[in-house]
């Protein structure tokens, strides 16, 4: 059975965590930590749900999301952009959306994350309990190993930029083979998350997209760049193909929007 600690502050929560990071998990929505009951004997939980902000604040183009906001909170909020709502709706279970928090979805760093590819494409930034903040890319690249820092907010500097978002799975609620997100702000940003390969930014593809309108070149480059493994969602080759065509489609659509502007 899980030992649950109820800290009075986020600092206290972090202190608990750092005492035994290997066997400690933060508990907010619980959809990750409690999943399949395996954690019951493995971890102690530090309950932070009442300590983490759940506000969603839109200031002009800037969107600040409290890490305690649930995916359904985002779906229900009038000022959240459609792309972000759509990413939340990739979790097709409303019950799950009502439980899963934004912070938990980021911190669990899953290869089938509902949010990460889009937050990457939107140039998201994560803020921590100690006031520190960093780009999501850096967090995912450098902070993958748990340090104990608690995500308190996610900031999207411009949530109005055009994005392309797709997720491919056999059925609506099974594990996806692939999620891609592309955006066009000052430049293209391209993210791909495939089962068996954690999400990554495809900067070579972004550069090529600026230089070339040739879909085939994009597709080829994507397929050379990512190397997802064979797994229950399909072969690596299938995922490479799909990533290629979806990203090429996304970039074409975004280029169309650039022309419109």
């Amino acid at each position, binding site marked *: *059975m*899980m*030992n*649950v600690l*109820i800290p009075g502050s986020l600092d206290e929560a972090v202190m608990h965590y750092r005492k035994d990071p290997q066997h400690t998990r933060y*508990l907010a*929505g*619980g*959809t990750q930590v*409690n*999943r*399949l*009951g395996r954690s*019951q004997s493995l971890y*102690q*939980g530090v*309950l932070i*749900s009442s300590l983490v902000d759940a506000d969603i604040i839109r200031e002009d183009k800037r969107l600040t999301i409290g890490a305690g906001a649930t995916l*359904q909170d985002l779906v229900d909020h009038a000022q959240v952009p459609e792309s972000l709502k759509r990413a939340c709706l990739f979790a*097709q*279970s*409303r*019950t*799950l959306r*009502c*439980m899963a928090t934004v912070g938990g979805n980021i911190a669990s760093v899953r290869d089938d994350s509902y949010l990460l590819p889009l937050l990457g494409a939107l140039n998201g930034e994560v803020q921590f309990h100690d006031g520190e903040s960093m780009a999501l890319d850096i967090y995912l690249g450098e902070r993958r190993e748990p340090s104990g820092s608690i995500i308190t907010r996610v900031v999207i500097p411009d949530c109005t930029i055009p994005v392309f978002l797709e997720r*491919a799975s*056999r*059925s*609506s*609620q*099974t*594990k996806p*083979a692939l999620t891609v997100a592309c955006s066009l702000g000052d430049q293209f940003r391209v993210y791909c998350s495939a089962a068996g390969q954690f999400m990554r930014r495809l900067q070579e593809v972004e550069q090529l997209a600026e230089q070339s309108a040739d879909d085939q070149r994009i597709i080829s480059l994507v397929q050379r760049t990512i190397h997802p493994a064979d*797994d*229950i969602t*399909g*072969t690596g*080759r*299938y995922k*490479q*193909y*799909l990533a290629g*065509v*979806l990203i090429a*489609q996304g970039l074409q659509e975004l280029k169309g929007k650039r022309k419109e502007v």
Partner: protein
Amino acid sequence: MAVGLRINGIYKRLHADPGENLQRVLQREGYRSVRNSDDGEGFAGSDTILVDGRPAYASLMVLAQAADRDVVTPEALLEGRRLSVVQQSMIDAGVVQSGYNIPAAALLLTELFDRNPEATDEDVIDALSGIFIRDIGYVQFFTAAELIRQRLKDPSYTTEVAPEFRDDLRQVGKVREKVDARKLVTGMKAYVEDMKDADACVLKMLRSPHAHAYITSIDVSQAEALPGVVMVITHENCPDRYYGQAGQGFPEPSPYDRRMFNQKVRHAGDRVAAVVAEDEDIADEAISLIRVAYEVLKPVLTIAEASDEAAPILHNSVVEYVSGAPDDLESYNRHADPRDGKVIYQFPIGADPHRNLAASVSGGIGSIEKGFSESDVVIERTYASSQVQCTPLETHTVYTRMEDNRLVIHASTQVPWHLRRIVASALGISENRVRVIKERVGGGYGSKQDILLEDVAAYATYCTGRSVFFRFTREEEFIANSTRHVMDITVKLGAAKDGKLKAMNMHVQALTGPYGNHCLTVPMNACSKSLPLLLCEHVHFDVETYYATIPPTGAYQGYGAPKGSFALMSAMAELADELGMDYLELIEKNHVRTGDMLDILKCLGEGREGAAVPVESCGLEQALQRGKELIRWDEHVTSDDPDIKIGKGFAIIQQGSGLPGLDHSCADIRMLADGSFMLHSGGADLGTGLDTVSVKFASEVLCVEMDQVAILSGDTDNTPFDTGAYASSGTYFSGSASMLAAKDIRTKIISAASEMLQEPEDHLELVYPGMVKGGKNSVSYLDIARYTQSGTGRGELMGYASFTTEKFSFPYGAHFCQVAVNTRTGKVKIQKYYALQDCGTPVNPDLALGQIYGGVLKTIGHSLYEQLQLDKQGICLNANLRDYGVPMVTDLPDVFAAELMYTDDPHGPYGAKSISEVSCNGASPALFAAIHDAAGIWIRSWPFTPEKILRELKRFS
């Protein structure tokens, strides 16, 4: 430590560990409708509650997360004894079948309509998106929602929820409340788990990590020494008796090829040791203390591997025959390995276990060579179908206890009497020492036709005297529950240029898995429930079933028919293409009609001699005509998106109604002192509405309202024998028995009334409501009851019937669909799906529609999404509902409609035939044809994944 929270409006301080799983806490506190069907996956939603007004999965929370919050469980919906608008509307719409998740659905719909009284169908999909319901395919929830929406404004609102049939009848063919619906929608005590006592032990199973191995040593001493461990069972101390797990009529065609525990494990997940302990944690710890050494053998995972001459042998066993042993048996057994145990056949089934051949059979009519030589066009294709899981919401569960010196088994089973026989045999005790009580079944779909856990729990109880509760985890459900057999079916068809079939050859190769449950009958059923759909003079079939070290197989709704239909109908679609003929025209030219004789059934007797059988009612023509109109068969549809290709397909289907000559059902009915009736049926209602069928038949015969007939069913001590609920036998066999028992008591009622009224029996008739009317006077059932039970009368009136038959009643149907194939991503979207089915007289029309929707959605899942995936060592890679890929409400076709094609069958009770299994036979071949129509490709293996479509389109190599 105490945690305070408000549950259903009442503040409570729960003395429990804050880290304990909330679902467990709530169940223990008596909120039994917060159930567990996925072990905290956060997917199936049996554990749905509201927390601060929003839906949540209780299993994904620990108690501490609920502290100081408002928790609402489905129990809150009932106001005293009064159902809420939502609950009543769900019952009225016919969505309550097996019911395991129905309280959760009621809670979610309540939350939705509280939030938005004008909720749309789209909102209903969103609200129900977090629960899995396997039995009814979700569609009727939209009807329930319409009732809720309107009744919130006008509580008296009602509408037609399903068409009604037979104006000449009062109950049969009419929409009536399912007899157990209130119990299920409110979450009352109903399932096995609700019956366990507080002091019951828990049984947990140590399972093999290897697909194929000998246990060379097993040390349970540390486990046995652990305080709280009551018993450990292994192959070294279990009964030395061989039996099979298939719940089929004795003598079974399935071999007795296992003991309770074997020295050889034959699939990853096979039984190694059972621990009986005071609680689950102790059992888990004890399991971790068992030391097992294995001699690992090469796994056998495919048909090619299993049938290879050099393949590792799963059952290099001593073979015995109860009858019909071959002359060379002694030499056959000479090289058997004693560690492999025995295989005992009741009679020959074409097996050669030393070559992994579990069963085989061949047969045919006419001359296949002649037929093909006379054909202008011949095609031969192979269709592969994968291993699919039944995934009942209530996992396999049993509770066993001693009552005096008798063993009582509370079971979630389709076959109470087979269960009693098999358990008694396994334990070596007589059947009169065993009582089986079938509780409500939270989904079976065939998997609860097999005895997968009851034998072990019963043995533990019998040895220790302790009550034992054993529930499969969801993972165990995937690795140790029966699945539908893997099959490769090669179909060869020959036809004249005009499309008339000249010859049909079907070669079925199947994998039975580690043991031979249904190894002859399921694959043979692929032939017997598909070939008779088409008229052809020259027909041949071969069936071979092999042992393999894959998870077990067994019965699954439809048996082998969904796979046989997939192969045969798909081949017909390909033949039409080859002939350059419209597929529908080809089918219309060849399908059976009323009056046709099915000669092929002479050689498809499923382990006994068959007989040619006439088709005496057939709604195929109606179904085809209606489907053609609905789908607009002759219109080609295109998309504005050049990547999207749209196509249409269909398939015709059939099944049986039980197994004439094999099945046997009994019922009795008694008149109580107030003139009401108590019906005892052997039938096992799986949630499909069989009890309602039986009550309808009895009340129809006896001219009373349904509430005048109470029913008890599936209790081996208190109800008469029934072979069980499988092979679509419920309405036809168990229902007929109830009808005939009612007719039997009717004659006794008339006889008693004749004495009372002093009129001859042939001047009397039963009239509604519960009267016997003569030429001059009439008498009520109340008066008859008082007269007969007065002490001077003839005594309590009782009717009894034992129903067997040689007559067949075949349900038919046609399924049509329209799909959009994205040729760039391979994604298939079902835009329209129409299921048109002939079940004779639909006894429960609303429930019949639910059966169709459920069967179709299940097999859409099999066709497009679901697949038990194993690695090269035979380990299951996706043993949970999400990764396995069951369809949810969010996967419904855009348009999904079922219609009932009325026929009046001369042999079925009130003209009724079966409904459920046949629904599973159309989706695969209809989708197969539609995908080809859309994209020009034939995907000949399940599931039709985007990857397969893209490969077939040569998008990548």
